[in-house]
């Protein structure tokens, strides 16, 4: 369990892996998993102009 850096809601690690992107269940901010043990997240990188398929 850790805190969303935007809204401080509790965020659980339900089988997430390092680098995974997921929305905060409370505020919807996209978060990135930094480490799993201990579980730590930060705001996901912002989409850049050259991002895509």
């Amino acid at each position, binding site marked *: 369990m850790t805190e969303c850096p935007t809204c401080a809601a509790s965020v659980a690690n339900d089988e997430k892996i390092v*680098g*995974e*992107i997921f929305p905060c269940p409370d505020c919807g901010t996209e978060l990135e*998993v930094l480490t799993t043990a201990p579980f730590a997240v930060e705001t996901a*990188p912002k989409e850049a102009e*050259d*991002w*895509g398929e």
Partner: protein
Amino acid sequence: MSSGPSLGLFLTIVRPEEKAILAAAESRGVRLVRFDDRDVTFGLERPEGLPPVVLNRSVSHTRAVYAGRCFEHYGVRTVNEPDVLELAGDKVRTSLRLAERGIPTPRTIVALSPEAATKAIEAIGYPAVLKPAVGSWGRLLAKVDDPASAEQILEHKEALPSPIHSVFYVQEFVEKPGRDLRAFVVGDTVVGAMYRRSDDWRTNAARGAVAEPAPLGPELTELAVRAAQAVGGGVLAVDLMERRGELVVHEVNPTPEFKALQGATGVDVAGRIVDYALEVARR
């Protein structure tokens, strides 16, 4: 840790696609060596311990191309190869290559100034579509309905800071039946295809289009494989539209997402990609 074969995975973030690739590798006893495109550095000397093949899944086109060139320098094969990324990542070059190979594609005119773009739009006719030469997910696409909107859109594009926005890629607007098609090609095989339905004229999954499985008819499979091979082959998502009863190829995506296609078709796309990378490693 597995003692089986190893592959590299060059990535920015772990999307459902990369998570599926990691799981597919694990289930095959393949050790995946992760390279984070925000951390990795490339010297001129070849480092020790590199895997024979790297899956290039960076979400950044620029990083993917330069990393691909560095891995190539080290003698490491990448899926896809940097030549493929450069060609398919550029709509102008892709259109030229499709035309050279006789692959049906929407009518397209390239212009290099707003004045020339105005002429190109007039020649294509209204409505026309303006696309950035490099870009994805339907970003900064514009449907140009009349001369007034052409003038406004061109003025806005000219004001954008990157010079790439002053390359004007003008394409006919295809009146498609509320959907387009995506065929996912791995090597010389179409592993699955889907319709992307949307009320919006842009039918990108990233814009909320709904995915449905599409039958792998002979016209679709032949065109998709030809289009993928035209840009150099590998793992490619070929986007097609139905234009008056025929299929036309409008994009070939070199770092394709496949969550929607895997969900719609049930095809283990991630597994096919890992198997293909292992095959490349054996060549």
